[in-house]
């Protein structure tokens, strides 16, 4: 696995940063020359992951979120969104469609959407320690130079 480029950004879990995080991810991904549809998929997946941190990881206070983006090999965007918040006892349960602890303001479809808009999704979580969501999305080569 060849890491061609990477960034890491730390930001507080205020909801205004949802738009910032997906715009930053789209800007970084643009070097892979994605289609509008691929960019939309990346923005969606990042928005879901960051919103989870804001709503679930730090429900009562602002905490730190770290988004790390890497270009792997020639064509793969690797996204990791990490928090140091409350964590989850049961990751599998949290990933079930329609399951949510967030009340009626949440749809319970966040992980389903992340799964469907990326090629792979891994979630690691420890109660009291935090959660890392890792996603990969291959961007198909078109007429890229360099």
């Amino acid at each position: 696995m060849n890491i061609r480029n990477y960034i890491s950004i730390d930001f507080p879990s205020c909801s205004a940063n949802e738009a910032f995080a997906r715009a930053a991810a789209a800007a970084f991904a643009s070097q892979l020359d994605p289609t509008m549809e691929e960019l939309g998929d990346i923005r969606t997946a990042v928005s879901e992951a960051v919103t989870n941190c804001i709503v679930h990881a730090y429900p009562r206070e602002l905490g730190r979120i770290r988004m790390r983006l890497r270009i792997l090999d020639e064509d793969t965007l690797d996204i990791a969104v990490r928090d140091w918040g409350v964590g989850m006892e049961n990751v599998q349960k949290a990933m079930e469609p329609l399951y949510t602890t967030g009340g009626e303001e949440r749809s319970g479809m966040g992980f389903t959407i992340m799964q469907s808009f990326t090629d792979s999704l891994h979630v690691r979580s420890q109660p009291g320690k935090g959660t890392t969501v890792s996603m990969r999305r291959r961007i198909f080569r078109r007429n890229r130079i360099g």
Partner: protein
Amino acid sequence: MSISFTYLSGRLTVYLSGELDHHAARETMQKITELLDEYLPRRCVLDLSGLRFMDSSGVALIVRLSRRMRELGGTLCVENPVGQARRVLSCAGVDKLVHFATIGG
């Protein structure tokens, strides 16, 4: 995120434009709920043609609005979702729950 609306003989059409995420959803839901309470429409149409982005927060908003319209004895219809918003809605299965329409498309 901005909202505008028209009301004509029992039909309230709400136009959403911009980006509907968790940050925008609460205020958007509140504004639409106020409109529903004021006009008590038989039919509420959510026009998404101006939406550049939507995530699962928008899905939750549509499900809640649909429930609210049923409580009022009316129906909710989602019109003109485009691109990314359309794919999020169909991934979440909202098209099985709420009537979708594309006008002039």
